């Protein structure tokens, strides 16, 4: 492998991290039965998107976009600002999800998806 290929791959390091995080998070959401772990997975999934947006806005050798002498190359601030919004949305979603888990635990006595499904199935039989 020539050096160029290696540096190219390393230059895309952020995006490799994004893909790994995204798939790991997605897998956890699907595979885990524990509702809290599902939320953790969902968070990992969302964080991968944050990293993706932040990497996207970065310009090589660029600094923060400040109007001052000597600063000519700067990163694109727009994706960074967008992701602030997405982070806020993510926090709200997590808070609501955790609140729901607390309520589910109160009324079912369990936060394991498979156990809850058994309880719900029995309820459906009675109804």
């Amino acid at each position: 492998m020539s050096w160029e290929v290696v540096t190219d791959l390393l230059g895309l390091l952020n995006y490799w991290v994004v893909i790994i995080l995204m798939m790991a998070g997605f897998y956890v959401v699907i595979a885990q039965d524990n509702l809290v772990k599902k939320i953790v997975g969902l968070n990992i999934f969302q964080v991968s998107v944050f990293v993706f947006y932040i990497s996207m806005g970065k310009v090589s050798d660029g600094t923060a976009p400040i109007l001052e002498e000597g600063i000519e190359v700067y990163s694109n601030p727009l994706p960074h600002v967008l992701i602030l919004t997405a982070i806020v949305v993510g926090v709200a979603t997590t808070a609501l999800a955790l609140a729901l888990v607390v309520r589910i635990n109160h009324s079912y006595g369990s936060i394991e998806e498979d156990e809850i499904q058994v309880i719900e199935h029995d309820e459906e039989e009675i109804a």
Partner: protein
Amino acid sequence: MSDPASFSDPWLILLVVVPLLAAPVCVLLRSAGGAWSTATAVSWAVVGIAIKLLITVLDQGQVYYRIGGWDAPWGIEYVLDPVGAVVVVIVAVIGALTMPYAKNSVEKEIRHDRIYLFYAMMLLCLSGLLGITVTGDAFNLFVFLEISSLSSYVLISLGSDRRALTAAFRYLIMGTLGATFYIIGVGLMYQKTGTLNMADLRTIMPAVIDTHTVHAALAFLTVGISLKLALFPLHLWLPNAYTFAPSVVTAFLAATATKVSAYVLLRTIYTIFGEIDLFADFPLKPVLIVMAVAAMFLASLSAIWQQNIKRMMAYSSVAQIGYIVLGFALASEAGLAGGIVHMVNHALMKGTAFFAIGAMVFATGSMTLRDLQGIGRRMPWVTAAFVIAGLGLIGVPLTPGFISKWQLVTAVLELELWPLAALILLSSLLAVIYVWRVFEVAYLRPAPLGHHKPAEVPLSMSMPLWILALATIYAGANATFTLNLAHEAAQQLMGGL
């Protein structure tokens, strides 16, 4: 990016801001009555604004508003065209009818100390749905999508059955995945185009369409939106969410939320990717058509076996979404018009159906077919309204369902897709079966012992129900208005192709 013919209109921003600001007011009032009055007043004000906007749009062609005075594509722009205006009016009117209906229904189904929060959430959801429809900015759309989604998770979890909690949780997981897929798509597009404005995206897109980045973006957008739209097979969150949510919430969401998601799909395909013949260059058409047909059949089949009338109608919604998406996927003017007309008609029919079910639940406390035996004699008016909606879902002549299915079949025949026309008719037969099951239970079975007395619902519930039912009848009997509007909108959307 608006052409000189369009018209700047501050009402566009008020449409979103008024309910958004009223929501915290409801929380501060902390009283059920106060919150109800605020929500009702605001939702009717929103109807006024929506109708005013519709008139302006029909007159001027397009209306825009630039937030903070920043010109597009740098600033966030709100744009409204005929399709958007129709969706806005539907959402506003259903919202306004929901509020008076909610007063009695909610008192029975939601704990008293939570009622003011319910109205705050309803207003947030309303504001989010309207925001999605009017925004011309792809990222701003995500923000409104999350406002409406987060509030609808809360609304669903307010259901009295504990299964409402798990239904809300599952919807939250699926909905968040969908919304996150959507921003991944938007991010990928931004990487290639450097813009978030939909009209701007449209002009830049042809230059970058042949890149993997944009292909990936299209895939992420389609899957993300389909999740929110509950397009088969991504509909798994919908039946339980609709079944266990409070009756009012089901009626509101069934009539508005999926329609708004359908509108987002429309915007993505025909505005953002409007300059590109997506259906010729990508396998999007067969994929969407197969999913739509699968939804029409499998969801209708599931509906037939349900014992719970709310869940039956929820599956029916999944099937009806199939018809809407089918219309969009045909990529012809007639097909698009069919999809848009069905979007309007389905909102009216499902709104009526779920309002009627809500009234039955209010009077009998049950939503299983077994307990609703003989309901046609106990609640003749409510059941009659349900019958109107049910006939519409089948597509009986003189009902709105007939108009949209006729339009769809015409479109399909125009493209000479004969088997598809047969499938549309066959799937309607499945609707006959599930709707007939309700008719049989309601009219032909004797009422359970000790339940012979006529059941009453308050006027605040029967009025909104019958307003919607009459609107349904009107949309079926005089389809020229909706059809013309849909054709005009379809022409405008197809113009780019």
